[in-house]
């Protein structure tokens, strides 16, 4: 955020004066008509920081519309301009040529001006993501400091276009937008270990993320259940740890996904969780796991306490040798991304403490408990990360244990009273971590896998939208840190843990639920009226349907002929679903 604009009154002056082809939402019951302000057909999501638009329209001639930039031969921009063609002009819908007699009613071109003139390769956390967008009758201009801001501007422009009932492509004749994100880190966690997500589905999630201005894919790639990541150094990891030889991400698959993300301005942070959540790793390297004891008997499971074997054994040198080699490989594979997420969550020491070798090790090293041992393990791994030139992201547990973390570590907060009854609230943790000088990311209230049926909101208003319990979460609620600490609360992350999702339902489960969080992370805190937002969200979910994402309905109603299973259904369009 290179500049901040002060208190701009957000003026939505769109007027729906002509018919358009999309989206109506309807009440739950006739006696509870919807409140809130109906949305324009082209209302952008997330809501820009400042937006002013006229109520008259200009039209676009599909044969004579030009969008170009001052950067030549920049793959991020070239690829975007190519990609957005099928979003501007959706397949199966033939856009009419407008009457060109009155040139002032035609939007001829949009020019993208990238101030830095640099074609960045990969987005960084503190990169400027802002843009300005102006349309004045025949011409539009998107101004940005760098390519990432430009991508945000193109996305917003694409959302401002809409198709009229008689299939003209239109937008407001005069538009002025100044926009920047409230938080620089806006993440989605996908878990490919509990269930495998096929590559085309991950790409569609990335597309949906770009449509919602999410900019980090936290790829929780491995866990107890499976290890789908193919390592060239340690091929036995997938040979033994994957569900099957078909349930893997080859090096080509991984690069394909990383490139797909990068070109959309999305960072990919891989998570390789240790020392817990490693049963799949243990199938390849059983000797790395701790033998759990029942009395003097090794490898005995005690139900609810520990398994037969679990958690890496921090007393073994070969564990660190492996981690060193493996993390080096990861660093090379995810070559542009400085961060690796190391997990370090939910380490329960019962198994460690049952093991006589570990007990000896504790004695010899003046350690007294599992926390000491966890600190020992974590310090080794964090040192290792530094030696290979990587930065670490961790779940909060290791920090809870009091381990000294490098100052550039990002702490992800997932604990809250609502999840663990003996835990303080997430706001307590956020305040504490940022006040100690760490960057922090909030995931705790955003576990989107934990579904429930939409409930009536209040006696006065029936929105019945599960979504808006996330929409109304302010990350700074009860925050006690100072201004510097506030700057270190870098954002939030919507997590779709995959116990109950896979390729069948992950897209319709996550979208547009995550969109509510997208707006919270991007837009001004003043944009917080869910009754109005539900109408814009409906516009946005229909927009995602037009882009081939099977986003689920937010209320009764309909979108258009492009719904799933209908004549112009987009979900099976090859351009949107990446099945070769």
């Amino acid at each position, binding site marked *: 955020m290179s500049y901040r604009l002060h208190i701009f009154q957000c003026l939505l002056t769109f007027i729906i004066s002509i018919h358009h082809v999309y989206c109506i939402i309807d009440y739950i019951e006739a*006696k509870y008509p919807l409140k809130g302000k109906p949305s324009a057909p082209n209302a952008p999501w997330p809501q820009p920081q400042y937006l002013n638009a006229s109520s008259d329209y200009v039209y676009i001639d599909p044969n004579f519309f030009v969008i170009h930039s001052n950067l030549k031969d920049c793959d991020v921009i070239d690829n975007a301009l190519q990609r957005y063609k099928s979003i501007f002009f959706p397949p199966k819908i033939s856009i009419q040529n407008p009457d060109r007699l009155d040139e002032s009613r035609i939007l001829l071109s949009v020019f993208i001006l990238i101030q830095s003139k640099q074609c960045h390769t990969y987005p960084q956390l503190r990169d400027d993501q802002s843009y300005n967008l102006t349309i004045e009758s025949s011409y539009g201009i998107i101004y940005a400091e760098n390519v990432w801001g430009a991508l945000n501007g193109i996305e917003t422009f694409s959302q401002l276009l809409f198709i009229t009932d008689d299939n003209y492509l239109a937008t407001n004749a005069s538009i002025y937008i100044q926009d920047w994100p409230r938080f620089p880190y806006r993440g989605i966690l996908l878990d490919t270990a509990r*269930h495998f997500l096929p*590559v085309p589905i991950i790409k569609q999630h990335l597309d949906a993320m770009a449509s919602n201005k999410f900019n980090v894919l936290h790829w929780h790639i491995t866990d*107890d*259940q499976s290890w789908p990541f193919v390592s060239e150094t340690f091929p036995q990891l997938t040979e033994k740890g994957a569900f099957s030889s078909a349930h893997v991400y080859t090096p080509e698959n991984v690069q394909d996904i990383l490139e797909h993300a990068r070109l959309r301005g999305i960072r990919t942070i891989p998570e390789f969780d240790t020392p817990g959540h490693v049963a799949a790793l243990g199938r390849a390297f*059983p000797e790395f796991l701790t033998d759990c004891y029942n009395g003097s008997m090794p490898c005995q499971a005690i139900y609810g306490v520990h398994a037969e074997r679990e958690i890496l054994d921090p007393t073994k040198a070969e564990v660190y040798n492996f981690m060193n080699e493996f993390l080096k490989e990861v660093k090379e594979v995810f070559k542009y991304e400085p961060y690796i997420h190391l997990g370090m969550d939910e380490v329960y020491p019962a198994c460690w403490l049952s093991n006589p070798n570990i007990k000896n090790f504790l004695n010899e090293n003046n350690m007294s408990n599992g926390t000491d041992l966890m600190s020992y393990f974590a310090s080794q791994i964090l040192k290792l990360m530094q030696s290979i030139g990587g930065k670490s992201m961790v779940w909060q547990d290791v920090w809870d244990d009091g381990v000294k973390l490098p100052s550039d570590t990002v702490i992800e907060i997932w604990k809250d009273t609502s999840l663990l009854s003996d835990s303080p609230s997430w706001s307590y943790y956020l305040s504490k971590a940022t006040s100690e000088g760490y960057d922090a990311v909030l995931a705790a209230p955003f576990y989107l896998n934990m579904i429930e*049926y939409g409930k009536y909101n209040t006696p006065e208003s029936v929105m019945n939208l599960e979504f808006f319990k996330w929409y109304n979460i302010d990350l700074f609620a009860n925050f006690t840190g100072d201004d510097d600490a506030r700057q270190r609360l870098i954002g939030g992350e919507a997590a779709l843990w995959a116990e*109950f999702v896979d390729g069948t339902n992950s897209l319709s489960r996550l979208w547009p639920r995550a969109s509510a969080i997208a707006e919270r992370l991007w837009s001004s805190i003043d944009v917080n009226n869910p009754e109005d937002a539900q109408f814009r969200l409906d516009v946005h979910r229909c927009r995602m349907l037009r882009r081939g994402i099977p986003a689920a309905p937010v209320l009764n*109603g309909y979108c258009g002929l492009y719904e799933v299973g209908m004549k112009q259904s987009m979900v099976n369009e090859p351009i949107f679903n990446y099945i070769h």
Partner: protein
Amino acid sequence: MHSSALLLVLLTVVSHSHGKRPRDPLNSFYVQATVGYPWPQPQAIHTTPQQYGVHPAAFHFLVNQTSQTCDLLTSALDRYYKLIFYPYSYLNYILDPESVIDEIKDKPKKTLFDLRDTPLLKRLNVYIQEPCERYPTLESDESYTLTVTSDSAMLEAVSIWGAIRGLETFSHLIYPDDNLGLAINQTTIIDFPRFQHRGLLLDTSRHFISIKTLKINLEAMSSSKMNVFHFHIVDDQSFPYESRSFPDLSGAGAYNQDHVYSQEDIASLIEFARQRGIRVLVEFDSPGHTQSWGRVIDVLTHCYSGGKPNNEFGPMDPSRNSTFSFLKEMFSEVANVFPDHYVHLGGDEVDFDCWRSNPDVQAFMKQMGFGNDYSLLEQYYMQNVVDIVGSTGKGYAVWQEIIDNNVTVKADTVVEVWKDPYPDELARVTKLGYRTLLSTCWYLNYISYGKDWVNYYKCDPHNFPGTDAQKKLVVGGEACMWGEYIDATNVITTTWPRAATVAERLWSAANVTDPNAATPRLEEHRCRYLRRGIPAAPVNGPSYCDFEFNR
């Protein structure tokens, strides 16, 4: 060919796993699926480890010379052959018979030469005792026996419907096998449903669901032996049914003219269902839930405030004769279009406020001597409607309120219980002698986190205090997928395989109740759905299927 009690005793339920894929015993972090085990659990099944290979070039269906046959059987055999041997292409084929087989993906994994030393299953003989009915009914016989004991298997059924259920089971017994390509184990099955009415409700008013998606859902139903599609076609929000007599109903009442079911759509859906032995039970709910009817046709009650009509509308207006003449014409069309004996008349959740506000309705109340008891007016309305529908020769199904409100209905009326506490209501309705359906515990639209199907699985329609005669009156139940947050993006993944657990409750024996025992079979069943192209969601926690869904 009725299942004999003796055989039932002889054939014990044997749990089995063919050990196709031994898994690391260390790994207890995800669910293991059975291999080649049918869902729902048959009444009696006996299998042995003896395997037979099944190969498309060496297998055929054979209709016995003495068997009854008909178009339903011919098309079922064609369909199941494709389902067994061309699973990748199957869904496209049934949605569009012109589509081509995917020769690469559906290529047999083994050649006949590979299988030269393997015993092969060469044919399934099919024998049907009685002439085919054109449409399935509440009384249809769905029993069958299936024996796979040599290279020639036998499927016997009283009716075509039993044969279709048996073919479904046969298709479940065949599983992909590393050595044989496709295999089946030596198996004997005697099977029949515990309940006659095993329904699924979809709501196409809150959101429109395309015919294509409805057909995929029918296919999913048939894979779990469900036999009634409760088509909650219209409601307050929209009226997608394109009426012959009253085209304006959908003209004004549908969301828009892309979101309608034409007469051809309806006919093709009914035919698709018929081929699978599925009844289409259509619901035209009234007098409430009818806002969308009244956008051009003046049948709704005008609500008043401050002595004037306030432009709002309530339930159907029972004070006007014109309402009933409209309904007469409407229901005589419905009786014609939908071949099932039953029409669902709704009758639930009637709000009296608007009736109370309307002076004409007040006058009518006085004239009829109803006093201030608007439930009498509701009763009057429903009485007229049931008489209208009765006069078309149809039977009707209704939501429980009709009986709660003491409407006199025909003896063959089916009453659907949807409110809690359902045991009391089941006891009440069956005591009155009506055939009864349970849906209270099976509102699948009420999603929650985790393995929620266990709750559906545990709910039993006989779980109420009553005599044997009362229990016999419970003809089954329905899983309901109301459409407030459901459309074609998520209807299949949210319904399946959760509805399949209701299907097992309604088909299998009363003592098949252990969710832990069901889990590995359900896991296989959900992967079976994926193999057939139907995106059934994971419901048992971490797992995988050999065929994952990527669109």
